[in-house]
């Protein structure tokens, strides 16, 4: 094996070791190494992210806030804020902390925005702030914006946070219920198996007993086999039923592959209301005029009692015209063509409309 190959494997073995637990690590403050003190634990403080061992933290910060012991760093640190390191790279550790802090404040949800575009703009803004905080760009201005937002939207932030908490709890509960159900199912299956075994044994014993009692050997074995077969068939039927039940469960979405997806109901856009319900009253062969120079119409219009009673002469003129022109919609050619198409017994039914009426009634009833 070449040296190069050996070198390649080393980072992998290193990653397997818990973060911060590397054998060769040395505390930058007291210089004690893990080799000498196996219980060595390193802590960091999110003020400056300088690493030091637990005993140094105890020693320096037990009596209250003190300056960071690393040369050149003048940050004042408190013991309470020291914690174990999560990531090997301290830059990553710091970035994650900042992101967490920002996410706790900028916790708006997509459904709060009118359009996806707005939501994306918001996300972009948040990312800008985060980026500035991480890379220390324009830090004062960014901090000011951050605090301003926090102060302005205090209530909303709280609400969203509690909403998230509730969702988490609900999710956890759902998970737990699912696990319980699965366990129950497993128990049931196990029990069934045991019963099956017991039954088989009993059957065997029964056959033996009957043979011992001196019954016909062939008949007894055959019967025993039949009993076993029948029981097995019953069980198979039950299993099939169970399977179908589970399938229908799955179809209802109770155990699909991806969980926690929002159930999307596709609301069909409703057509605008048509007050007339599709009814169109139109005149094909004539258009009604507002006035007609006929004595009957004029006298009606002039009559006080007619007017006061609400009699509208236009209703009359429209109707008269409609009556006069109604015959024009009927074409003998069309009518006889349809007569042939429907196949009317001409002797039985007088008109095509009557026939159609009869058919419609039959269809409706």
């Amino acid at each position, binding site marked *: 094996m070449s040296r190069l190959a050996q070198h390649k494997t080393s980072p992998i073995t290193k990653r397997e070791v818990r973060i911060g637990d590397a054998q060769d690590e040395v505390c930058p403050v007291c210089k004690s190494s893990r080799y000498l003190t196996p219980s060595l634990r390193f802590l960091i403080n999110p003020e400056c992210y300088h690493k030091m061992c637990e005993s140094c933290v105890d020693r320096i910060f037990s009596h209250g806030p003190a300056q960071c012991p690393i040369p050149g760093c003048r940050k004042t640190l408190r013991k309470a804020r020291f914690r174990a390191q999560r990531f090997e790279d301290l830059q990553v550790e710091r970035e994650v902390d900042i992101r967490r802090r920002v996410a706790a404040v900028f916790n708006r949800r997509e459904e709060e925005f009118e359009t996806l575009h707005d939501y994306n703009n918001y996300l972009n803004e948040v990312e800008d702030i985060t980026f500035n905080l991480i890379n220390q760009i324009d830090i004062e201005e960014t901090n000011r914006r951050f605090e301003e937002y926090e102060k302005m939207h205090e209530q909303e932030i709280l609400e969203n946070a509690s909403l998230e908490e509730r969702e988490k709890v609900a999710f956890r509960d759902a998970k737990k219920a699912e696990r319980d159900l699965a366990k129950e199912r497993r128990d049931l299956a196990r029990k069934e198996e045991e019963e099956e075994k017991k039954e088989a044994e009993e059957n065997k014993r029964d056959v033996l007993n009957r043979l011992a009692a001196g019954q016909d050997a062939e008949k007894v074995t055959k019967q025993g086999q039949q009993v076993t077969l029948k029981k097995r068939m019953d069980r198979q039927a039950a299993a099939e039923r169970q399977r179908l039940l589970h399938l229908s469960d799955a179809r209802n979405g109770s155990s699909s592959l991806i969980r926690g997806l929002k159930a999307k109901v596709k609301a069909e856009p409703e057509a605008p209301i048509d007050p007339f319900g599709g009814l169109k009253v139109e005149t094909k062969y004539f258009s009604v005029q507002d006035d007609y120079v006929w004595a009957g119409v004029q006298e009606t219009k002039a009559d006080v009692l*007619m*007017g*006061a009673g*609400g*009699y509208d002469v236009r*209703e009359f003129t429209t109707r008269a015209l409609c009556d006069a022109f109604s015959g024009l919609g009927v074409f003998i050619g069309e009518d006889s063509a349809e007569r042939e198409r429907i196949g009317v017994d001409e002797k039985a039914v007088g008109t095509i409309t009557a026939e159609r009426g009869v058919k419609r009634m039959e269809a409706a*009833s």
Partner: protein
Amino acid sequence: MATSPALDVPPEGPPFKRLKTGSNGVSTASSPAPSHMADLAEQVDAQERQKYIKGRKLGSGQYADVYSAHLVSDPTQLVAIKKIKVGAEAKEFGISYDSLREIKFLQELDHPNIIKLYAVFSTKSQNLNLVLEQLPQGDLLKLIQDTSNITYTPADIKSWMLMLMRATHFCHANYVLHRDIKPNNLLIASDGSIKLADFGLARSFADPFQKMTYNTVTIWYRPPELFFQAQYYGGKVDVWSCGCVFAELVARDVMFRAWPENEINMVKMICDKIGTPTEDNWPGVSKMKGYVTPTEVVPLRPKEHWMAQFRAVGETGVDLLMKMLLLDPRKRLSAEEVLKHPFWTAEPRPSRLEDLPRKGGGMEVMGEDLKRRGGEIPNGGGAGGRGDKVARKIDFGAMK
């Protein structure tokens, strides 16, 4: 057209003469018509009659009995059969006006919000049977009155009113006046839609100078021009009734519940709730026969007054209601204008049929409604029904 003015329907023609036999049960075969003709008519009649199997009786009244029935060919297809009893009019003219009107108009009108008449046949005892659509969910009146169990929203009201107005507009577009629109003539179908029923008082639009009766429409839903004995009127009478139904749906009480229900009290009530009709707001009203010069004039009620009572349907709804209940029929909206009003397209959107409350009483209510004769005030609304108008018992026990 020569008409008996009070009854509106001309006792026209031969087709009905056939039914004009005595109530002694003598069959049409004894009529002077050629026997093969009578046979054919009877055959067709029997053929139609044998298509249905009569079931339970749903209701029974002075005027008609209503039965549930189904088709012989398909027992799942239910219908209602309204069996009209032979009355005094039938003896004189061969058929009663109510049933004649009902058959005449229903067989012509085919609309989703109007009850369907499938067939007509007669039985041996000269009873007329109308085969109607079965509407098992009761009527709108029961829904309105059942305040403890049923709640509905303004969207439901809009949906019902829209169906009613479509039916009314359809009638008017076909030159038919219904003249008896009221909540218990609005039956509820199994899908939740409402259907206009009881065309017993309907008539077609009149020609100029052809007189019509003013003694029509159930009194609480009767428009003011009919109280002033107008003999020439048009579709606006139905719009007034629709307006009363609208107001009743919102307030869950009859808009003009005059008690005792006579014309004078009704006019007083209308004056009180809408305003006194004068020459200013209704030109020509003082010339009308039944007009009484008022002693005190109530000015027309302003919109705020209406808003206080009918706020539930919003400002556009109140605007529409006011325009449907205008005193002057010329200014009152026509059915078409009502449908063009912005109310229907404004928020909220009318409820879908499947979301509407149904339980308007069930089959028995349909039986009750169909057996009744036009113009009667339903029982349970405070009125004693038709019986107490026909004869009054004198209570001697109360005298000392």
